[in-house]
């Protein structure tokens, strides 16, 4: 085990996989000399050279498309988007090409492509640089979707993603890069997709969340425990595949579910999870499934407003109490 920052965990896995497999390479804006504006490829140019750590023009559709093409031809590109908000610029290459190529071609092509980058609030980057866009990629079939919430998850999920033969949308969070945690040194350490992480057990209410909300939920849990409410906190880790089973098992025990995410509430992945759980655990639910997510407005620049848009610990607390009828 080594203590690493989330960004270091990502960088180290990329480096290890690049050493292990010559077909792995990186491209994106400012990934070379700068090592990515969040440092996720820092030092890799020196180790691997400019062919494999490749600065791109500001042409997201073009270089994501080049990633699709290279992956079709046996390479394993890791494409960095500086902000996942820029997926929109490359959306056709992601949703109409990467997601569909294998299926539309009758299984004749595999696409080992990772598109990774950060998203979310915390720096007051305003509307076009603060979104959490993962839910869109869950809706259109053909993409796997990962969302690591800790350095270890970042390492384990990213290695799985790189070795996977399918396109993966890999969502990091800008406010997690500086958080540190233990990461296994094993160069084969992988976390499987589709296996939720039960961070802590509890008998009263299930809270499903990820990214920044894992820590926030744990904070709320510590507080509410003193009030006699025992929260079970689950991080799905991947949205595609989504480990509904673990959540349903938990809800069968607790009878209550709150889903929390930073993505907009309306049409977010919480809606999908809530719908599945109310279907699969209907008789076990003692209260409606509650969802927390960003309000339906554009993420504002002002930090006070930003905080008013995304769920806060107090909102989690209130929702948990509500489903517990307290």
């Amino acid at each position, binding site marked *: 085990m080594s203590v690493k920052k989330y960004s270091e965990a990502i960088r180290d896995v990329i480096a290890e996989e690049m050493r292990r497999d010559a077909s792995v390479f990186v491209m994106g804006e400012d990934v070379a000399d700068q090592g990515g504006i969040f440092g996720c490829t820092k030092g890799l140019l020196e180790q691997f050279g400019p062919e494999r750590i490749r600065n791109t023009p500001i042409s997201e559709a073009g270089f994501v498309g080049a990633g699709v*093409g290279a992956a079709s*031809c046996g390479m394993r590109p890791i494409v960095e988007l500086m902000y996942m908000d820029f997926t929109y610029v490359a959306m056709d290459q992601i949703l109409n090409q990467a997601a569909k190529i294998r299926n539309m071609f009758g299984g004749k092509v595999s696409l080992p492509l990772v598109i990774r980058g950060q998203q979310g609030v915390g720096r007051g980057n305003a509307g076009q640089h603060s979104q959490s866009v993962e839910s869109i990629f869950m809706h259109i079939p053909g993409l796997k979707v990962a969302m690591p919430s800790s350095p270890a998850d970042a390492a384990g999920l990213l290695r799985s993603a790189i070795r996977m033969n399918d396109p993966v949308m890999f969502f990091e969070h800008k406010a997690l890069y500086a958080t540190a945690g233990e990461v296994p040194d094993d160069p084969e350490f992988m976390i499987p997709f589709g296996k939720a992480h039960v961070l802590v057990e509890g008998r009263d209410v299930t809270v499903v969340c990820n990214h920044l909300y894992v820590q926030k939920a744990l904070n709320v849990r510590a507080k509410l425990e003193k009030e006699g409410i025992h929260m079970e906190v689950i991080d799905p880790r991947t949205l595609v595949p989504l480990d509904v089973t673990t959540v349903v098992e938990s809800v069968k025990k607790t009878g209550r579910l709150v889903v929390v995410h930073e993505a907009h509430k309306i049409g977010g992945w919480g809606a999908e999870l809530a719908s599945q759980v109310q279907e699969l655990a209907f008789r076990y639910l003692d209260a409606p499934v509650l969802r927390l997510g960003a309000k339906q407005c554009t993420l504002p620049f002002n930090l006070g407003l930003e905080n008013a848009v995304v769920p806060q610990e107090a909102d989690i607390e209130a929702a948990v109490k509500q489903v517990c009828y307290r």
Partner: protein
Amino acid sequence: MIPEKQQRHILETMLRIRAFEHKALQLFEQNKLRGSCHLCVGQEAIAAVICELLDDEDYITCSHRGHGYCIAKGGELKPAMAELMGKETGYCKGRGGSMHIVNMAKGHLGANAIVGGGIPIAVGGALACKLKNNGHVAVAFFGDGASNQGTFHESLNLAGVWKLPVVFVCENNGFGISVPFCQSTSVKDVSVRASGYDMPGVTVDGNDPEAVYAAAAQALERAKAGLGPTLIECKTYRWYGHWIGDPEITRDKAVTKEWKEKCPINRLKMQMIKTGNLSDKEFSEMEKAAKQEADDAAEFSLNSPEPDPATVMDDVFADRVPAII
């Protein structure tokens, strides 16, 4: 000059493409084939000549008007026609249809129904060649309409700045569906755009196999020498509507007739006869063989099974995942 052996093969390829297209048209009219079906009759030289210069490890992508490329890049008529019919024996097991034929074994990375969508994918193929340093190239085929998509620009710039082994081939048939080229495009020749990426740009008569051959050979040489990409514009025309069923509101029948006079097959045939490399009889035999092959492909496809609906979820992912509801 195209070497004699290649001339013959190109002629054969063009005949096979044309026979295939006409068979598809016939089947469509007989209600035995459906969907958005874009014929390339009249434009065969571009596919036949350029793919003649490629081998199986060279990559191509192409547009919705893709049957010719599939065949020229080594595809067989049977699985191609079966795909147009949505049969299990098709190149995509009936999942893709006319606009999505793929053939990885022959380096065909797939046709694309998004105008301009395949161009960056070819750039990625070229990038793979460069990273593997295997001496191979990629060719992106697309229409004049696609040259106004952002992906065209981004792809040419990427290829230019990375000096990738790729050739961009624009089939300028003068129309995007009903919209004439001059109404959608700010320049008279797409090839002039090459200078915006510091690469050679050339316009050739796309119905002249020799001209296409010369331009492509030079571009491929350049690409393989590590000197980077080239943009080739091939002026051509489609004999039929945009797709089968197009009312052709804005096209002048007289112009179509003129272009039929410039038939690329006839052109190469006459050249070969003139130089003594082909007899009328040989040509008739080639033509007959092509038609027979197309008939056989139709027969094969008609008799092929429909895909089993129970298999519809089979090919979503390579690495299977626990089922999503």
